[in-house]
């Protein structure tokens, strides 16, 4: 077996898993507070467009990220208004947000840049570069033979763990942070409670509304980072129409797969990221296992696995109890 291929595969697994992970954690915060969020996809898409667009115009990738966050938060606010204030159907609101994003990004980008729904190519400075972790060896400066002679762990560290965008590391750090916030802070306790039994939280004199709005806002920020990763982190160089390509839904699937918990979310996203990485390299399967797997099967894998999980064959996935229900104070 060829270690180079494996390392390459793991490297692209981490890269493809990053937006999934961020979106999955976004869904985690929202759904744990009792607000279903089908609109992860749309928020990512709007942020991907704004991040790339503003990074191109201002030349600063960070301003781009800020613009992405602003756009994503706006959609979050709409979702919050629909599902918290006006007690509307959260699923329908999410569907509407996805369409809004998918349509508006093309309409606006066509109007701003006139390139058929994409942003111009981003140069250096307009996108997030590769971060070299301390102690990592620059493998690109070595020959293949020299690389092969390095210890495997060094290669793993330098090749797989190092050299991603800063957003990837933010995503990875967001996992323990989310765990800490949800399970070790007062805010997290209340947030989880509001998703299980909002009436109890209300009785304790805590605002259900404010908690849910803050959860939806956190989800907006996380989705925005996910979107920015898609369009402005190397090797990506700009926005392409509908570039999220169902990642929001894969993130939802990962959320169920992880049973609404942060650490398993990391595992689920890495698994689904691995499938996506494999999908782009069908030759690897042939080489590693001497097995021809249709790439369509690989792309369907996250969904099939989620359905199996939902069917309860591999432990039941029980969503937060008050999920999807608007809270009515007066009874």
């Amino acid at each position, binding site marked *: 077996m060829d270690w180079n291929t494996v390392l390459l595969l793991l490297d692209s697994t981490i890269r493809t898993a990053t937006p999934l992970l961020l979106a999955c954690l976004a869904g985690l915060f929202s759904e744990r507070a009792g607000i279903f969020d089908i609109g992860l996809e749309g928020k990512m898409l709007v942020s991907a467009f704004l991040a790339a667009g503003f990074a191109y115009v201002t030349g600063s990738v960070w301003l781009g990220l800020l613009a992405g966050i602003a756009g994503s938060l706006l959609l979050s606010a709409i979702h919050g208004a629909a599902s918290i204030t006006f007690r509307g*159907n959260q699923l329908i609101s999410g569907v*509407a947000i996805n369409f*809004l994003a998918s349509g508006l990004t093309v309409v606006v980008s066509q109007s701003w840049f006139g390139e058929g729904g994409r942003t111009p190519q981003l140069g250096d400075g307009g996108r997030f570069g590769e971060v070299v972790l301390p102690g990592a060896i620059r493998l690109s400066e070595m020959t293949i033979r020299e690389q092969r002679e390095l210890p495997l762990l060094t290669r793993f560290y330098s090749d797989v763990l190092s050299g991603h965008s800063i957003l990837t590391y933010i995503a990875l750090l967001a996992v323990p942070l989310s765990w800490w916030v949800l399970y070790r802070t007062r805010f997290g306790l209340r947030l989880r409670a509001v998703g299980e039994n909002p009436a109890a939280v209300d009785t304790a004199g805590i605002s259900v509304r404010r908690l849910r709005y803050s959860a939806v806002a956190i989800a907006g920020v996380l989705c925005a980072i996910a979107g920015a990763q898609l369009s402005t982190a190397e090797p990506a160089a700009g926005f392409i129409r509908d570039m999220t390509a169902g990642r929001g839904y894969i993130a939802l699937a990962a959320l169920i797969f992880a049973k609404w918990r942060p650490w398993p979310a990391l595992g689920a996203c890495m698994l689904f990221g691995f499938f996506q990485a494999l999908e782009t390299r069908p030759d690897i399967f042939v080489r590693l296992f001497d097995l021809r797997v249709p790439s*369509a099967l690989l792309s369907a894998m996250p969904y099939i696995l989620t359905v199996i999980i939902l069917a309860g064959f591999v432990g039941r996935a029980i969503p937060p109890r008050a999920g999807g229900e608007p809270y009515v104070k007066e009874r």
Partner: protein
Amino acid sequence: MERMPRWADVLLVPLISLILAAAISAIVILAIGENPWNALKIMVTGALGSSYAWGYTLYYATNFIFTGLAVALANHARLFNIGGDGQATVGGLGVALIALYLPWPHWTLALLAAIVASAAFGAAWAAIPAYLQAKRGSHIVITTIMFNYIAYALLTYLLTGPMKPSGTMETATAPFPEGTHIPSFRDLFSHGETILFRGTPANVTFFVAVLACVLVWMLIWKTRLGYEIRAFGFSEGAARYAGIGSTKIIVVTMLLSGALAGLMAINNTLGEAERLILNAVEGAGFIGIAVALMGRSHPLGVFLAAVLFGFLYQGGAELSLSTSIPREMVVVIQALVIMFTGALDNMVRMPVERLFANRRARGTPVAPLAGPTAERAPDRAAPPSTPTTAE
């Protein structure tokens, strides 16, 4: 009991929602530097101005009637079928299988067989989500979304592998044989020298769709099953108490809903493309959500809303040809319609309700003793006129 007159609920609230959606769309069009009034004129001429325009508008409307009915029927049982896309995709597979691999002497027989096959395949694709919702309590929204993607993957596999004729580059099956070609509107309505609907995809399936509207109306309001479905939608607990089994209702409703979505394939696959292509559904399953919401889950409403969306789609296509407004503007309008009629329904409804309550309070000053108490609406939640999801 009634917080507002029925006409306000059925007409006024959707109309206000539509006006709001149109207003925001107009603002978007203004913002990208085009004239909304001009855009509207182009859309009306382009979608309604000629038999050519109608040929496209009604073709799109036919798709949306089927997917709209699918969503609407499920809504009556409080099930949110978001999987119309997948079900219609797999319905197309059913159509392709019978059209390609069986000989058909006449199009009428082929049409009947296509109806059966597309409905059966669509229903089959809804069966697993239905079973999982009924027996395992897995959320139908999530499972139907997953099945959409599984359907795309399945079709991608089939159209790049087993069902692709050798020697072509396209991801599509071979063209269907002559015997399966159902008549288009041009064949039906052109007489002598005057050729109508030239080059348009509208076909005889439109009448199947109208028939489906009537049948769904009869099913929901004139049959025992329809009664049970509605009862289940109003209150699952009460329905169960009345001896209506939840498993049966969920499964049967979803099978019917999937079958309706699957039927769309006779329009786009048998009628238009005359072969199975990848992404033939083009998101019509999702438009069905907007159509069902607009149409208040009533077949007549679904029909009207489907024609409205057919108008939007054809008008939007014309718009992108003659202005700088891209076709995706229609997606924005569609999103706004879903948002205002679905998710933000209360934002429109609550002020309207208040308006009527105020008018009624002022309008009946007589009998002051009985007045306030009689006026007071019982503290019961209004029946769900907007669909919600099953939990």
